[in-house]
């Protein structure tokens, strides 16, 4: 009986997994087709002539390397900033009692629910008045702010699980609060730091609407915007478009697998325990 139910679960689970992966498999197979096979009607799933060299030629098809570099710069800078700003903030909101602490955490919860798209008109006007449109630095700042709330809530949760006595022992040994945070707390909350870093990186890597609105120069476009501008044009080199997409997707999926078990808790932080 038990074996039969597991067998059924295996069949059902595999079927669902295949459905979930199917759009990405279609993208993979399309990325391996020669240009001539893209205009076949009706469409076919598999390439007849497998062109693995599309993954070489894609780098010349559009300024793909430039787009990726831009995304990499924005995502890594904003990840670093998120960590630098969120760690002390999370620590203070976990360890210090101060008037306004509830308000601070509450405000962070509200910010986490807001998406840049809701404020895009205001963001555009503001950065225009700073003369900071078409500037990768602006993308770094905006991504950092919108990923901060998640980071603070998640790290605060991790810090609250550490017994205060651990730090107090370090203080007695002559450590300042800052040194104790660095030497005692940070090593213990490493899984939290990794989760925040990965989440902030992926969120910035995948961010679309702010980059779409603020960046106009071709050489400054991040990948997500660089790729979508071909959509709707007559001559889309789908094989190169999907080859590029998959090169961008695979590392992100691997990173995500590392931290998946902490993510749900972080995204619903403050709501249910």
């Amino acid at each position, binding site marked *: 009986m038990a074996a039969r139910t597991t067998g059924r*679960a*295996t069949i059902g*689970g*595999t079927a*669902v*997994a*295949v459905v*979930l992966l199917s*759009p*990405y498999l*279609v993208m993979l197979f399309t990325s391996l087709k020669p240009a001539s096979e*893209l205009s*076949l*009607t*009706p*469409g076919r799933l598999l390439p007849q002539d497998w062109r693995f060299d599309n993954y070489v030629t894609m780098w010349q098809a559009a300024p793909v390397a430039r787009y990726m570099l831009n995304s990499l710069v924005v995502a890594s800078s904003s990840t670093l900033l998120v960590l630098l*700003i*969120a760690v*002390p*903030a999370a620590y*203070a909101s976990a360890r210090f009692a101060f008037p306004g602490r509830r308000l*601070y*955490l*509450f405000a962070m*919860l509200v910010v986490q*629910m*807001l998406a840049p*798209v*809701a*404020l*895009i*008109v*205001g*963001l555009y*006007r503001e950065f225009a008045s700073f003369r900071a449109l078409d500037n990768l630095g602006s993308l770094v*700042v*905006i991504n*950092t702010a*919108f990923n*901060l709330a998640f980071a603070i809530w998640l790290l605060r949760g991790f810090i609250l699980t550490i017994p205060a006595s651990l730090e107090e022992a370090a203080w007695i040994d002559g450590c300042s609060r800052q040194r104790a945070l660095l030497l005692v707390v940070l090593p213990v909350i490493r899984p939290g730091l990794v989760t925040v870093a990965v989440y902030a990186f992926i969120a910035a890597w995948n961010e679309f*609407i702010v980059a779409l609105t603020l960046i106009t120069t071709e050489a400054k476009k991040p990948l997500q915007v660089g*790729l*979508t501008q071909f*959509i*709707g044009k007559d001559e889309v080199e789908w094989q190169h*478009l*999907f080859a590029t997409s998959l090169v*961008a*997707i695979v590392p*992100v*999926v691997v990173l995500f*697998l590392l931290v*998946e078990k902490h993510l*749900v*808790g972080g*995204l*619903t932080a*403050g*709501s*249910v325990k």
Partner: protein
Amino acid sequence: MGWLGLAGWLGPSVVLILVVVVYPLIETVRSSFQSFSLTGAVKGSAGWDNYRTIIENPAFPRVIVNTVVWVVLGVVLTTLVSLPLAQLMSKEFWGNRFLRIALIVPWATSVVMSAIGFRWILNYYYGVLNPLLMRLHVIAAPVDWLGSDRTIRWVMIGVVAFVSLPFTCFALLSGLRTISDDVLEAAAIDGAGRWQSYRHIVLPLLRGPLTVTVLLNSIWIFNSFPIVYVLNKSNPGYLSDTSTTFMYKVAFLTERDVGAGAAMSVLNVIVIGVGVALYVRRSRME
């Protein structure tokens, strides 16, 4: 510790939120009461004109209906598929790990890229969905999924549910993990059938995670931009737009009317505010 000391710990985060969230919110409201030239320069005060312009736009009622249908059906579909899927994932079986990895892929991938993939799959001439459905005898002739406003809205709802599944499944799964096997065993001993114990034990215990995912998904789907943007990109007009993409088009693409776009943004923010209020009311702050 004095305020100065505290500012060292919290200051940067407060400044950043003020600059990137609070000020743009104020700026959006302010812009909604100003009139702009086509180049984006402020011409002067507009009173409530921008709100009148947006509400009197012939597409406005249609956009509102689209948005309600998009959010409600998107959330319902996501939830109905996630419930059994999470139940399946909570079981031990060979291939469980594979299913978890498969569910991570649409979560980690940018929604833009998933949407581009679907746009290609659904393509009337070259996509693989039409030949597949024809071979399965679901349809008799190719369907122009993205070209007809009768089909595109359902397609878009399907895609938004697809990308919302992973988070919802994992959140419900972590809820299921908190239900002890003892309770279910006791129910089985008392003669409860599978469906009975699901209906009377599992579902009530899942109420917390269910409420949270429904609220979060409602806000996220309301705010979702890339799916409609990518799938609907070749269609003129606002027939298939939601209030978010409508706002964006009015402000930056079709009419380039920043003031009217700002007015629509303010209306959107009010709706989001209701969702956020419901969400934070549930929160336990300490």
